[in-house]
């Protein structure tokens, strides 16, 4: 029996072994060894954060070249590097992303419409009237996000709100998918810099009324906690000039502060100034996260508040900015116009130093049109040129020595054109002149252009034909004169080669809502604009296909209507409302900062190849946003004010010295920060 058993099992084992050996040959399937290697390198969490069904599917996609080496969100940079080595590709560090929610009041603090005792899951809870919170976008706190997180990065804290562990979060997006309220989002520094508040997220009244959109409750919370550096970091996500803003901002945020309903607004700006002064007294600059170099080079014309802001954020996004400033020092109006009582020179210098510290290069005493031109900047390798000459009248820069120097190639102001004509030194116009104006004078200018040799003159107006003066409305007689009148038309873009303007894109709009209906590219060599400044133009270089070999070096460029990113902003094209400026009217430094940052948003979209689209549901004064008009259970507490320094008797200078306007000290700031109601849409901190 023993022998039979042994022999039988041996035989069976051998047969099975041989059969399997043969089968493994017969059914051999060649597998890409790199796929296996990549699969081993991947973390194997099968989280699906990359969009592929599990790690092995992702590995084969990477091996086939369908997916980039850095697609694994869970593994981090080490995994990316390992995959890069397998694939023989060099990898760059990816910008870290984090999951975040904006809800600040948990179930136990926020107002609710009923008490919920059902299944302990957010998706179940929202089935009943969208959850028990009064606020439609409030966190229900039942932790659906916690359950889906494979990395243990989310937990529901004591306040019934999710807490994200930045150390563990890999930004796979599982919680974003799971949240039925859509209040979790992945954020990165780029997103925080380029984002605007929407009417669909939780914002405090002060946040919405801040032109730059600083997370005001955020930094006030950090003042309460004593994390002053973190507070500075929060401010610098949206405003790189806290020292300046802290001193001269008109603080529209304080006007809309909800505490006004009880006693007096929170000293939002005083707290900003406290944080900024704190940073200055430490003597070093708090520099938030900076992205790796994108390989783009940008030029910023004008070193005022707008230019400094744009350059700062371009530097943070890795686009290597260089500021060109006509004056010997940076600062623009901040330095040369605003009195030193309000902005002491050392404060301004420290602020500008902080911006340069971020990786901004500055060339001062360089005037556009004299020391450099659009063409020379493109030749020097700049991809994009931004004009932030907002505050000053551009013509002052245009005609430094009295002579005309068009800083934007072949674009003249009508005033200069007429002035030079009356001096008997008319501007040399090209063959096709475009005049942007709606008045009768446009016709005079058009006729003089014709007499100066222009073959064709177009008058472009964004007004409807009925709104134009009678003389201009007679199109047929004018076209016989070689003058083409276009109503309800804007110039959407300009294009050119080196220092020459070559084309313009005319966009005809529907009169009632300004929606573009038709666009046409027209060869143009001179543009005469009726009035105002020409700030906030953005030029990018384009690869031109139809270029002959001879002028391959000449760089072709076009303007980008980055203000398309804002509703109402881009409707009127490149030359809309020049007197007001298209985004900023430069009436306050905070508005210049806003437009500087918004320009960067457009450029970022441009560089990343996205179409430039407006912010959907941008939170504006006119948007329909939940709010409260009455607050209850808030104790009155007096606003902390800095002691006013009274001039000594007999002093000659009653206005005090440059440092006469002091800020709050630390204890006062902390007390003031405690006054903040930490508002959300409808929530606010109530006295228990």
């Amino acid at each position, binding site marked *: 029996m023993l022998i039979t058993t042994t022999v039988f*099992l041996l035989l*069976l084992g051998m047969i099975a072994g041989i059969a399997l050996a043969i*089968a493994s040959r017969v*059914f*051999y*399937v060649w597998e890409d060894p790199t796929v296996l290697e990549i699969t081993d390198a991947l973390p194997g969490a099968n989280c699906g954060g990359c969009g592929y069904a599990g790690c092995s599917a992702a590995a084969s996609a990477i091996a086939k070249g369908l997916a980039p080496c850095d697609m694994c969100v869970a593994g981090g940079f080490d995994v990316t590097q390992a995959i890069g080595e397998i694939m023989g590709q060099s990898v760059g560090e990816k910008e870290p992303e984090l999951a975040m929610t904006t809800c600040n009041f948990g179930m136990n603090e926020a107002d609710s419409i009923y008490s919920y005792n059902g*299944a302990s*899951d957010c998706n*179940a809870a929202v089935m009943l009237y969208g959850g028990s919170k009064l606020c439609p976008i409030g966190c229900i706190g039942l932790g659906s996000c916690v*359950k889906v997180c494979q990395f243990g990065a989310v937990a529901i804290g004591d306040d019934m709100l999710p807490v994200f562990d930045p150390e563990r979060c890999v930004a796979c997006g599982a919680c974003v998918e799971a949240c039925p309220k859509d209040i979790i989002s992945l954020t990165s520094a780029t997103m925080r810099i380029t984002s605007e508040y929407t009417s669909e997220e939780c914002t405090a009244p002060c946040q919405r009324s801040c032109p730059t959109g600083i997370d005001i409750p955020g930094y006030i919370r950090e003042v309460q906690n004593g994390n002053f550096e973190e507070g500075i970091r929060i401010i610098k996500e949206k405003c790189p000039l806290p020292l300046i803003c802290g001193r001269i901002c008109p603080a529209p945020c304080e006007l809309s502060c909800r505490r006004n309903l009880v006693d007096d607004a929170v000293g939002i700006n005083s707290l900003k100034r406290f944080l900024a002064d704190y940073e200055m007294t430490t003597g070093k600059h708090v520099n938030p996260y900076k992205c790796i170099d994108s390989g783009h080079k940008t030029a910023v014309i004008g070193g005022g508040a707008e230019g400094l802001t744009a350059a700062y954020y371009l530097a943070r996004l890795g686009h290597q900015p260089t500021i060109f400033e006509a004056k010997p020092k940076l600062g623009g109006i901040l330095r040369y116009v605003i009195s030193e009582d309000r902005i002491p020179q050392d404060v301004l210098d420290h602020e500008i130093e902080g911006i340069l510290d971020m990786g901004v290069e500055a060339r001062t005493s360089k005037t556009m049109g004299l020391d450099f031109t659009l063409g020379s900047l493109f030749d020097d390798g700049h991809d994009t040129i931004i004009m932030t000459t907002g505050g000053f009248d551009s013509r002052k820069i245009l005609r430094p020595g009295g002579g005309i120097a068009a800083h934007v190639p072949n674009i003249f102001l009508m005033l200069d054109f007429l002035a030079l004509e009356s001096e008997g030194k008319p501007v040399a116009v090209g063959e096709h002149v475009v005049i942007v104006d709606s008045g009768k004078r446009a016709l005079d200018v058009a006729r003089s252009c014709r007499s100066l040799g222009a073959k064709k003159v177009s008058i472009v107006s964004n007004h409807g034909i009925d709104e134009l003066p009678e003389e201009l409305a007679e199109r047929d007689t004018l076209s016989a004169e070689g003058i083409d009148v276009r109503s309800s038309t804007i110039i959407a873009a300009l294009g050119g080669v080196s220092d020459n303007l070559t084309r313009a894109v005319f966009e005809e709009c529907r009169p009632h809502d300004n929606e573009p209906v038709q666009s046409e590219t027209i060869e143009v060599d001179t543009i005469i604009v009726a009035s105002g400044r020409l700030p906030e133009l953005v030029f990018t270089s384009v690869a031109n296909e139809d270029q002959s070999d001879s002028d391959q070096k000449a760089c072709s460029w076009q303007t980008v209507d980055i203000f398309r990113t804002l509703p109402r902003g881009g409707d009127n094209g490149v030359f809309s409302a020049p007197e007001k400026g298209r985004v900023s009217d430069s009436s306050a430094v905070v508005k210049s900062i806003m437009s500087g940052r918004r320009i960067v948003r457009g450029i970022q979209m441009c560089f990343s190849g996205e179409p430039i689209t407006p912010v959907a549901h941008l939170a504006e004064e006119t948007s329909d946003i939940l709010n409260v008009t009455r607050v209850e259970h808030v104790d009155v507490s007096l606003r902390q004010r800095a002691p006013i320094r009274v001039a000594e008797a007999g002093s000659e200078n009653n206005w005090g010295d440059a440092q006469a306007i002091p800020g709050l000290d630390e204890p006062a700031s902390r007390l003031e920060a405690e006054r903040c109601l930490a508002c959300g849409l409808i929530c606010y901190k109530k006295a228990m």
Partner: protein
Amino acid sequence: MEYVIIVIGAVLIKNILLAEYLGCCPFMGTSKKMNTAVGMGLAVIFVLTAATAVTYPIHHHIFTRFGLEYLQTITFILVIAALVQFVEMFLKKAIPALYQSLGIFLPLITTNCAVLGVAILCIRRDYSFVESIVFAFSSAAGFTLALVLLAGIRERLIIADVPKPLQGTAIGLITGGLMALAFFGFSGVDGSLNALVQQ
């Protein structure tokens, strides 16, 4: 008609999971998600049927002829393991799509007691070859049914308010037990069906 009785008996009355208590490991392990449960169920159907088709001739043509019945268990284990390996290779080559969906479950079943149990039950009950295949297939179908039902319940259990000590596998086992109790309601149905057939 006998086949119908075999099928009903194997799926509902003597369900391999809920009445025979075979293969409880994947019953708990792969019932957390519906997708996994379905995949596992299909893999079990596939392997169980194939294993019975192989072990039946081994028993009837080798063991009975040479009087080696005492080697049944160990031989079946070996044969089933080899078979699963073979099937895995074959699928990878011939039907990659099926391999993709069943691939990770196949090795799990290699030494599964449900597979061995059904192969042995076929022999014990003296089924013919066709009856064995039908029995194996329907046992596996019963396995899949129980697995899918439990997965459905467990997906709901996730959002239920379960007392802390019972969360996870504990409540899964209790649920499995309650399901088994419910399935005992079918006992006797085979007797009635037999009587019906004999009439």
